[in-house]
């Protein structure tokens, strides 16, 4: 693939603001905040044409195969051991490739996927309730607010059934009914019961399945595992991804690992907001470094904000905890009618409460989709009717459910969640309504990939939450686990073969390319350690997160985004001149690890704001206040924005490549939940 750039300046920036000078050589920011250029359009050339239901079969048939004797000679690097990376590394090992796997935790089993609670979708139609591959495809395209590719989503729905088979065969203890068959539940955005689950720990059980398959391959000698290793750079040589530079987090040693192809499965970047439901170590470093080496970034501004999380309790807060969406089945959401009503919830009579979701969305009530519930909570809090510390919370009240079903029944259904809530807040939700508030949860954006899951750097494949594919502008509940495992067990192992079949012609890796990548890593580490300023990396991260939440969060406006685009480069500049990173690069240095991640978040944050600013429509999780209908609902602009924004990094600012989206099967409509 070749892309040429057309030099064309978009007139979106108000006035030039000189970028401050500095003694350290900084990642170059665009000359004016928000400025970008538009390049040639981009297309996915790998999805076959023809009926959507045949495309994956066609691609599988067309894909070149690698003969077993050659597989043994080919090395594939897989960074990340979550559902996507763990399943991919195990499967590639089973196929006979030489695999090198990396993660930053002390064991592959601890990847962030372990924390997923609710479940995994699959079009099994075991209930006979009218589900089908086509329906799952349809729901996902619509749920994504028409910003995902039909070909990819259809394949995802097809493969979903194989995932459940695979997991059961591995011994994943899904919930079962008395007859011994699998149980399912319903999830948001669907009218059928297609979500398979293992109590509130579906992610854990699926990940342990993938982890065990991976450990089996490690024992078999096909996979070489590198835990406590952080990937800090990719090696591109001869125009292809040929390896990675990693830091051994225990010894501090910088290592180079070369390969015939590289797979990134490094998860989402929700932690750019500092506070999110992600694990503390989740980062953008791997995909960001790849982006700067030529991989386009798709839809960076598409972020999912989950409506039911435990609110922030103080300045020291280090992360946010999700309360399962299932609570909205029985809990009623409300705030006081009156602004600044300081009374305890029990003292507020019924007619002075506003059950605002039931009022505004009578058809769906408390069960509206995530993006809508989140925004409504923000609106009532902005009006000054929020509850709890800082007025940033709404009640989720189980009093009616307890009166109707009895305390025991409620405890049976939600006991573990109530306990988790009480542990964190010290309040008893059987007696006082829960307080909840939206929090950053998932990033739909990620590195741009084609149907083969290959990025714009040949030989660099991206899977799981790290890529942008499949969920459009809004992910449905229980679909991330499905996508990660579809990518890792079934899609990538086929499509990467097509690429590796040509490995004979790749040639040797140039030494200069390796040296350059290693030098980039070393220079950054040296620079971070040498600033010796007066603020910690965490304090900068908090401030950056605050900017992103306030200006590029649940609601975005031209004004807010411009403010962010002014503040972020200033703060980044300050970071590079005033951060304090203790110790040295030898041995375990967790403060150094964090500082490196924060540095990358700074750069990503800016691109997210540019993307959010350029997309003047509202769609899915991206709400531009300027683009709403008379009722305040998100208004898409299909005429101008039915495309994927694929951003190219260049030293003088981002370049936008548009991938037009065609909808042959699912008719584009405005979502309505009233």
């Amino acid at each position: 693939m070749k892309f040429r750039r057309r030099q064309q300046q978009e007139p979106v920036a108000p006035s030039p603001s000189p970028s401050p000078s500095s003694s350290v050589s900084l990642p170059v920011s665009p000359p004016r905040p928000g400025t970008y250029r538009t390049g040639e359009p981009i297309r996915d050339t790998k999805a076959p044409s023809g009926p959507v239901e045949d495309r994956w079969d066609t691609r599988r048939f067309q894909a070149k195969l690698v003969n077993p004797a050659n597989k043994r000679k080919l090395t594939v690097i897989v960074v990340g051991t979550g559902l996507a990376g763990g399943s991919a590394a195990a499967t590639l090992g089973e196929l006979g490739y030489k695999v090198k796997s990396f993660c930053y935790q002390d064991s592959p089993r601890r990847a962030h996927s372990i924390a997923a609670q609710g479940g995994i979708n699959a079009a099994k139609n075991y209930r006979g309730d009218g589900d089908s591959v086509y329906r799952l495809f349809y729901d996902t395209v619509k749920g994504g607010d028409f910003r995902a590719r039909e070909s990819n989503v259809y394949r995802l729905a097809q493969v979903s059934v194989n995932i459940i088979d695979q997991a059961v065969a591995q011994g994943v203890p899904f919930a079962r009914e008395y007859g011994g068959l699998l149980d399912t539940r319903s999830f948001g955005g669907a009218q059928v019961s297609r979500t398979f689950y293992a109590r509130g720990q579906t992610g854990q059980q699926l990940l342990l399945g993938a982890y065990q398959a991976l450990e089996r391959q490690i024992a078999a000698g096909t996979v070489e595992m590198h835990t406590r290793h952080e990937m800090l750079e990719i090696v591109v040589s001869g125009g292809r991804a040929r390896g990675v530079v990693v830091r051994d987090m225990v010894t501090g040693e910088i290592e180079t690992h070369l390969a015939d192809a590289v797979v990134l499965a490094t998860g989402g970047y929700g932690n750019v907001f500092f506070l999110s439901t992600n694990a503390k170590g989740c980062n953008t470093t791997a995909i960001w470094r790849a982006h700067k080496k030529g991989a386009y970034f798709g839809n960076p501004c598409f972020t999912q904000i989950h409506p039911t999380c435990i609110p922030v309790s103080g300045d020291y807060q280090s992360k946010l905890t999700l309360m399962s969406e299932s609570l909205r089945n029985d809990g009623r959401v409300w705030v006081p009618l009156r602004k600044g009503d300081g009374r305890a919830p029990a003292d507020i009579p019924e007619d002075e409460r506003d059950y605002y979701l039931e009022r505004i969305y009578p058809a769906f009530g408390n069960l509206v989709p995530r993006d809508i519930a989140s925004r409504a909570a923000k609106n009532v809090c902005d009006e000054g009717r929020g509850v709890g510390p800082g007025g940033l919370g709404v009640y989720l009240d189980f009093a009616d459910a307890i009166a109707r079903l009895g305390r025991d029944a409620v405890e049976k259904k939600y006991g573990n969640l109530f306990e988790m809530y009480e542990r964190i807040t010290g309040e008893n939700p059987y007696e006082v309504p829960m307080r909840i508030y939206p929090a950053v949860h998932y990033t739909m954006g990620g590195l741009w990939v084609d149907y083969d899951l290959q990025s714009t750097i040949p030989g660099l494949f991206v899977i799981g939450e790290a890529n942008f594919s499949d969920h459009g502008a809004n992910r449905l509940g229980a679909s991330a686990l499905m996508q990660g495992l579809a990518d890792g067990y079934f899609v990538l192992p086929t499509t990467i073969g097509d690429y590796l079949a040509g490995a004979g012609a790749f040639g040797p890796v140039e030494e200069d390319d390796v040296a350059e990548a290693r030098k980039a890593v070393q220079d950054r580490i040296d620079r971070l350690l040498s600033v010796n300023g007066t603020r910690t990396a965490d304090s900068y991260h908090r401030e950056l997160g605050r900017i992103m939440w306030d200006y590029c969060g649940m609601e975005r406006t031209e004004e807010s985004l411009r403010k962010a685009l002014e503040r972020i480069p200033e703060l980044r500049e300050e970071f590079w001149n005033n951060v304090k990173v203790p110790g040295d690069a030898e041995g375990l240095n967790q403060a150094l690890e964090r500082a490196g991640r924060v540095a990358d978040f700074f750069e990503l944050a800016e691109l997210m704001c540019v993307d959010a600013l350029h997309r003047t429509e509202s769609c899915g999780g991206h709400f531009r206040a300027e683009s709403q209908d008379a009722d305040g609902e998100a208004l898409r602009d299909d005429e101008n924005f039915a495309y994927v924004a694929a951003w190219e990094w260049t030293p003088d600012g981002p370049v936008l490549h548009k991938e037009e989206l065609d909808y042959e099967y699912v008719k584009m409509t405005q979502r309505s939940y009233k």
Partner: protein
Amino acid sequence: MNLTLKIWRQSGSSDKGRMVTYRVEDVSPDMSFLEMLDVLNERLILEGDDPVAFDHDCREGICGMCGMVINGVAHGEQRATTTCQLHMRHFEDGAVITIEPWRAAPFPVIKDLVVDRSSFDRIIQAGGFVSVPAGSAPDAHAVPVPKEDADAAFDAATCIGCGACVAACPNGSASLFTAAKITHLGLLPQGQPERDSRARAMVEQMDAEGFGGCTNTGECTAVCPKGIPFDTIARMNADYLRSASK
């Protein structure tokens, strides 16, 4: 609240290590234990000291990454709770809290409170899996599984691999961890073909790693944040004996 912390500091595996005392002030009762340590570390960094190294990631009790011996108890005194889920409201103002790493020969200290638990991964490598390559699985409904078996398998499968059981055991045994996996897979029809070889290989690996034997003290279940039942160990022993007698 104001607290006195006595924390184990050890710069690396070759350092002997020692307890160091720190005062932390203005701790909010709503903080989690790890947030309290974050605050201490932020201060240490600004004062030019080395912050305390500790493992953590999810901070919601599921990844198994965190773990410290707090006042002599693995994960602290609150039952069925990981270190990251512990909150400061359970401590008294003015309290003195000792914080140490897991101590067991097969878990060497890397730095301060961070230990190397890769021995657990090697026990799983020995046989903690079902051999089923991707794409070879029959339909998920081909074999029904009685609900009681599925539920019991699930209970054992919730082990997070934190290592508290080892830290609490006077013998440094990894029996509860190993038995949890043997029980999980051994209760399911999918796990039957390899049941004997799995039990044998995992138990042998556990011994090879230098973990001690089980003498039924039950300290492991007492600290286990996931409440892995003690009788899984009896099951492991039975499976092991059965495999040995074949």
